[in-house]
């Protein structure tokens, strides 16, 4: 793909024999899946471009002082070049030099209340994943009960219930809230969760608000009773699994080094059977383990509704993805993009969440993202000792502590983050993908540069930009509105409110 300038360029465009100065607005021109795509960064509209438009844009960008009709006239009829220029003008790609740059900053989203709260119910875990970012400083666990793998007893019921009260109190006018049980392995604290859930339902009835409950589990403790509890209480589940047996056993062994795949599989299948198409898998892609196509196909084959693959960034040395891994991941993503197109055309479902998210987001653009996620604004994590952090990844980092239950929320970090919109961050403000991306994970930025200002460019930015390009190319290929891509993929008639298969459907299946 040619490297093209992104910044506005001064050009001359012929208009009915009269030359008037025109310059290109911020754009991104690329080829993906055999399609030439032109994105207007300001309007966030993207177009499939002909070869003429491609050459015309390159001409306008590189030889600003040359009349494009004259320059292009050697290869194309004048009428076609004029028509292409007219299209570019109409779609807002050209602007007169006097016209000020229109950088449509996303609206600053002041905190209107907390909507999501992660309860770190335990930092204990029955697994010993090789890349676990919580495994740092194992020797110091006794002094730091907030760290992963520590043998502390877990969150107290009092802290958890105070956290729930905090969520309801601080949610403001928000009616739809979410509470996430996180760990460690949260199901190690099932008893605590069992006591929290009725209290949440009670508070829902009192306030008229609704709370969606969810947890992220390693899948080893999904007994029949646990699955029943999760389904009956509408607790959504994301299962962390890295793919097939070989890679799972190597990267995610149990404590003591034993294989985990065979041990977790029955429980995972039980959960999937109870919630067909609704269980999401999260796979961590570690260094030299970047067979994303294989991983996604294996996990979807197990019955997971969607698969999200996340490269290991930071964490123990030797596990984080490298430069060569990034290239391999992009290659695999592109292959999955092709597979996704084929699947949609064949009425099959292939929910590779990394791609599908951006397919939806780029197909119907509902907002310009100012931030990657709601961490520290609408999203907080509550640690076992009652302290607030932007999300689970920051738990235990004193510089990012945001007060506690005793003394209330400290909003200084939130003010810092609010100021760091994509238009204010040095690396982001000139990136074409900024309004689709939002600036990347805050924790990755901290791991990379020690601060929030600079996003992690080597891995995260490159992969996200490439994924967005693939998503736009998929949309260009498909064109039509496809329920398989836009919807959640579940036949509403086939499942009840808890995601369970209705008896007659089950029998039919």
């Amino acid at each position, binding site marked *: 793909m040619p490297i093209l300038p992104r910044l506005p360029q001064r050009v001359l465009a012929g208009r009915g024999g009269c030359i008037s100065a025109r310059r290109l607005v911020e754009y991104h021109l690329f080829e993906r899946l055999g399609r030439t795509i032109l994105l207007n960064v300001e309007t966030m509209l993207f177009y499939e471009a002909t070869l003429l438009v491609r050459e015309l844009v390159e001409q306008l960008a590189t030889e600003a002082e040359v009349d494009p009709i004259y320059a292009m006239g050697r290869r194309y009829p004048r009428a076609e070049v004029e028509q292409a220029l007219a299209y570019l003008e109409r779609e807002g790609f050209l602007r007169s030099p006097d016209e000020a740059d229109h950088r449509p900053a996303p609206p600053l989203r002041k905190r209107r209340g907390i909507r999501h709260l992660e309860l770190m119910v335990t930092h204990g875990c*029955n697994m010993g994943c090789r890349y676990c970012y919580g495994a740092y400083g194992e020797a110091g666990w006794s002094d730091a009960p907030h760290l992963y793998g520590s043998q502390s007893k877990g969150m107290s019921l009092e802290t958890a219930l105070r956290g729930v009260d905090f969520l309801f109190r601080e949610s403001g006018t928000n009616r739809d809230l979410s509470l996430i049980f996180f760990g460690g392995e949260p199901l190690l604290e099932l008893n605590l969760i069992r006591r929290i859930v009725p209290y949440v339902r009670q508070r829902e009835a009192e306030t008229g608000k609704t709370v969606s409950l969810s947890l992220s589990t390693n899948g080893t403790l999904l007994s029949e009773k646990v699955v029943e509890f999760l389904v009956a209480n509408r607790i959504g589940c994301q299962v962390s699994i890295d793919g097939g047996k070989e890679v799972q056993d190597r990267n995610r062994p149990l404590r003591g080094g034993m294989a985990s795949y065979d041990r977790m599989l029955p429980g995972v299948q039980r959960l999937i059977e109870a919630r067909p198409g609704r269980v999401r898998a999260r796979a961590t892609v570690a260094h030299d383990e970047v067979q994303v196509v294989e991983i996604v196909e294996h996990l979807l084959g197990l019955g997971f509704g969607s698969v999200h693959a996340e490269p290991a960034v930071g964490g123990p040395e030797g596990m984080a993805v490298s430069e060569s891994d990034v290239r391999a991941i992009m290659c695999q993503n592109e292959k999955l993009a092709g597979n996704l197109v084929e699947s949609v055309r064949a009425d099959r479902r292939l929910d590779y969440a990394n791609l599908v998210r951006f397919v939806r987001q780029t197909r119907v653009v509902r907002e310009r993202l100012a931030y990657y996620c709601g961490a520290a604004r609408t999203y907080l994590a509550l640690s076992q000792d009652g302290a607030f952090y932007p999300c689970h990844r920051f738990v235990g980092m004193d510089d990012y502590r945001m007060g506690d239950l005793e003394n209330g929320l400290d909003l200084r970090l939130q003010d810092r983050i609010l100021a760091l919109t994509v238009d204010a961050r040095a690396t982001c403000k000139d990136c074409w993908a900024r309004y689709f991306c939002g600036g990347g994970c805050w924790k990755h930025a901290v791991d990379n540069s020690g601060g929030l200002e600079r996003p992690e460019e080597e891995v995260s930015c490159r992969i996200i930009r490439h994924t967005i390009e693939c998503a736009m190319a998929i949309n260009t290929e498909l064109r039509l509105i496809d329920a398989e891509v*836009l919807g959640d993929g579940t036949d509403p008639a086939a499942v009840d409110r808890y995601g369970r298969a209705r008896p007659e459907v089950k029998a039919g299946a």
Partner: protein
Amino acid sequence: MRRRRFLSWLLRLTGGCFTVAAGIGAAPLARINTVLLGEAWAQEPCTEDMCATRDACALGDTIGHTCELRDICDTDESGDCAGDVCSSDRSEDCRGDSCQSDNSGSCNSDNCDSDSSGSCRSDQCTDDSSGDCTSDQCDTDSVDCIGDACTTDEICPSEVCGDDVPACVSDSCSTDASGSCVSDDCSADTSGACASDSCTNDSSGSCRGDSCQSDDSGSCRNDACTTQDSSVSCRSDACDIDGAGSCVADGCATDGAGACTADRCQADGSGDCASQDICVVDASSLCGSDLCRDDRSPSECTAKDTCALDLAENRHSVRRHLARKDIDRATKWLYGLSATVFWLGGSWSG
């Protein structure tokens, strides 16, 4: 999908002429996506909707996100939707719907399968999670359930059913996750203070003397578990797999213990394994005179070994090597035999 099938049909019907004709006049820029932002360019207003999933039309419908009136959509999230025919309705003022799922706040006497409305009464629904549900016919009921015919109830005391009550003692339930469970007879026990259980799986922290099949407890001793023992201080186990660090004299099939000696395990990865093992695979450094099938020890497998494979020389030539040795030995023996025969023959003839 219907549109795609129609286009495919049209393409077949016209033998591709339609596409070619459309291609001749193709615009140099073909817009692909839609932007629902105030400053989006050249959006056409939309009126009555017939969307399949969610209304993604432009300017006319950006306020309130989705369809506003007389929608025939599958999902409706608009705030003032009324009289919809959708299969799922999330609008707040929904009344008299015939949808399958109703989340509206003031739903009464609906015919839906699921009802989560706050003041639901006398519903015919299968699942009811309303707060003050009374006399329902539902299978599952959570809060303040009274007089229900439900099969699962979370606040029942002294039950023989699945029990999740925190203070459950001496249960005969199949699963016990209560915090203070003691002397249970359940098949799975995850309680923290579990002791002397006869459960199949035990993950309690202080488990001792269990007869469970799988034991992950940290201080497990003298277990008879059949699958795995990952306790750090496990000794004298009879388990199939032993990952304990100080495992000695085990009868397990796989042994990864560092100080394993005199084992009868099938695979031995311990460093000090010597002379007495009858394991199938031997990776110990001092391997000699073993009866193992594979010898992965760094020392060269001696002729006394009966192993089929020796990786000491980093090559798979042990069989040939040993065969050659055997042939040499047999040749020597035959030579000696024939020499003896010649000598005896010479003596007799002499």
